[in-house]
């Protein structure tokens, strides 16, 4: 069964398996790119939309309870189609997109949840963009890449981990302030 194979790929994607990501990416990108480029989109639009859809898929997969009810192909196509439609509608000219042959119900739900979270992500992205160096890297290294304070202290030339830690807290407070004042 294709769906089982897709589900297996999805598990590996959630486990950050690069090979699985590459398989999914290379297999589905051309289809989406064709759809978008046939409907007034550029190659860059196609890339943005497809990667956004991949993020939807990735985050769904990481939640762990995501069970595919359609093929991965259908899911991705459906999410991309809806996203592109939304973008077209917000733009000056609206064009009719092809009707979905097989509409994926998962796609609609996933996309809706994604859009709800989107505002916060934008907020975080803006805050991280404003905070500047070295705070950005320190926070990324500690909270995202989960490096030890000792490593970070060495990387940034702090005399000891305690100093680095204080610096990290100051950065975090600034980020929090930026994040919450923009909301």
């Amino acid at each position, binding site marked *: 069964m294709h769906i089982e194979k897709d589900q297996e790929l999805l598990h590996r994607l959630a486990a950050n398996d690069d090979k699985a990501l*590459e398989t999914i990416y*290379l297999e589905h990108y051309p289809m989406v790119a064709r759809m978008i480029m046939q409907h007034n989109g550029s190659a860059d639009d196609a890339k943005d939309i497809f*990667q956004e859809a991949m993020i939807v898929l990735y*985050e769904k997969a990481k939640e762990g309870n995501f069970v595919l009810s359609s093929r991965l192909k259908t899911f991705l196509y459906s999410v991309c189609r809806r996203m592109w439609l939304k973008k077209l509608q917000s733009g000056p000219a609206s064009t009719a997109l092809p009707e979905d042959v097989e509409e994926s119900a998962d796609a609609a739900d996933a996309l809706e949840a994604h859009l709800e979270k989107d505002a916060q992500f934008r907020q975080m*992205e803006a805050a991280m963009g404003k905070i500047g160096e070295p705070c950005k890297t320190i926070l*990324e290294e500690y909270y*995202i890449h989960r490096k030890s304070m000792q490593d970070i202290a060495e990387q940034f030339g702090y005399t000891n981990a305690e100093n680095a830690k204080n610096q990290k*807290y100051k950065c*975090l407070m600034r980020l*929090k302030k930026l994040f919450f004042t923009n909301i």
Partner: protein
Amino acid sequence: MNDLHKIQEIERYLDGEMTAPEKEAFESLLRRDPALQREVSSHEAFLSQLRAHGSRQDFRSRMNAIHPKAITPAQPAPTPVVPLTSRRRTWYSIAAAASIALITSMATMAIMQRSAKNSITDKYEDVRRVLNNIQRSQNAIIRDINSKNTGPANPGTYGGTCFAISRNGYMVTNYHVIAGADSIYLQNNKGEAFKAVSVFEDVSSDLAVLRVADSNFRSAPLPYTLKMQPSRLGQEVFSMGYPRDEIVFGMGYISAQTGFNGDTLAYQVSIPVKPGNSGAPLLDMNGELIGIITGRQSTSEGIAFAVKSGHLKRLLEELPKEKFNRKDLKQKNQLSGLPRVEQARKVEEFVYMVKVYN
């Protein structure tokens, strides 16, 4: 505890870095301090947001590493270098044409909308008639000569219709017909004219009661009666009025239980009306009076409005009893069962043209 220290403590607590006694102390502090509790959960949410952001960034960069390997299909319409200029020129002219078309259609829409708005404001129009010399038919003048009663020399400014509600000269018409009148004359289908005065006016229902000035005025018993029950949808109705100097018969049916803009005092009637029909009686097939024509919808043909007879009854109750004989409208109905031409012939005698001078 300053903010920096607080964040540190919260994070150590969340990361499980506290020693057992520290943790216990912190938890007991948490239980006592809801503000701190909120801060902890908000910090936790914030950190997870930060991590989710980071994981997205990572995922993006992983995808970007893969992207160059992906096959991007060729643009559906490849654009060679040389024809680009001509194509661009075509695009310019298409764009110009499109923008002209757009401006034209926008302007048209704006105009259409404005005229639509205007037509909404004057949807309802009274059907009293503005009289002038040319509109007067020869008919009336010839009858004027034959009759001893000579009508006024001045043809009048406005015209409408009224009908008798008693034998001694009480008539009902629309308030808007006689509003602002200096003098009122009634004229029947034989061309006889009578001076009349307004004795009662009700602006809200747009009804007015007139009385023939000659107190010796007597007519035959009224052939129609006043219907008390509301009429139902689809009820066939007829009316007689003076849109011209000749009495005109019209037929139709009740098309709605409410009048213009949902006015519950009126019916909507599908019947041809023209200016001059204001105040005409609306009778059902049994010859019962069910309403008084007041106006029509100007935007569409065949939509007229009539005040319900129930309202007329309420109005008549306010008239002085000694002068107005209410029984005249409760006599035996002489119209029921008669063929329509006979009904029309009988009703005709009791319908008058109203001429208003002001």
